[in-house]
């Protein structure tokens, strides 16, 4: 049905004025296209994000940060490599918990992290990122369903040990 598809897509709760107007605009666009919308091409309902997805994104960002710092300052590599390895292991554990088998399937979404103009500043930036990461994982742990709380708690605790190492 040409007219119902865009309306259905936009109106989830009680139809607001904007949603109705949006639906009308969508319907007008559909008319302008002048064809039938094949049933199989209907826009799919947006999937709910996995509860672990934000922690995965944060872990990927942390990995980017470490890699960029180690590339900019190779002398820091010995000190930072074990911490980077911890984050990679955390990422693997998160993916196993989510049932996402292929590590290569989810490429890092963030752009290459920027690095401070001196090594001490770069380490300080990692320290701050680990602190924020610990707080984020702790909050996620406290809000999580029982199945995910232990993993998220371990990740928070791991990041706490990193904060101390980088202090």
């Amino acid at each position, binding site marked *: 049905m040409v007219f119902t598809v865009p309306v259905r897509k936009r109106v989830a709760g009680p139809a607001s004025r904007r949603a109705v107007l949006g639906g009308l605009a969508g319907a007008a666009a559909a008319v302008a296209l002048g064809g039938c919308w094949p049933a199989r091409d209907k826009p799919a309902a947006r999937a709910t994000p996995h509860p672990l997805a934000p922690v995965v994104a944060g872990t990927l960002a942390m990995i980017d940060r470490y890699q960029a710092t180690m590339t900019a300052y190779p002398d820091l590599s010995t000190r930072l490599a074990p*911490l980077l390895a*911890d984050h990679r292991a*955390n990422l693997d554990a998160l993916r196993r918990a989510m049932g996402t088998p292929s590590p290569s399937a989810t490429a890092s979404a963030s752009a290459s992290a920027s690095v401070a103009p001196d090594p001490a500043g770069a380490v300080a930036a990692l320290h701050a990122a680990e602190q924020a990461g610990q707080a984020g994982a702790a909050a996620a742990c*406290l809000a999580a369903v029982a199945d995910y709380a232990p993993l998220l*708690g*371990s990740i928070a*605790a*791991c990041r706490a*040990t990193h904060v101390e190492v980088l202090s």
Partner: protein
Amino acid sequence: MSAATDALGSALAAEHAAIFGYGVVGARLTGAALAQAQQADAAHRDRRDRLIVRLTKVGIEAPAALPAYALPFPVTDPASAQRLAVQLEERAAAIWRVALGPTTGHDRRLALDALTDCALRAARWRRATGQQPGTVPLP
């Protein structure tokens, strides 16, 4: 007893064991390492006391400490004492980690704080034994 109070009871048993273990550890250490052991011992006693209060408040008899606990290996010198300290913290951390699942609210906060503290102390003891940086991915 609920799954949450069961888990807290297990955590209390782990804290009893850690306190016993630190008695053995402290006897073999001096100086800064002894001070580190004493701080850890005090932290475990504090956690134990809070657990006893928590369980008693909901009418559950808190498990008592055993007279003695088997050690995983003989502790004969500072090096083996510090190795035992690492194990004490790792074992307590593992129990607290499990407690995160069935608990909610303040109880889960208690478990998360305890897990984090155990992880920090384990990493410090690993560094004291020469492991750098002494962290593990999933404490």
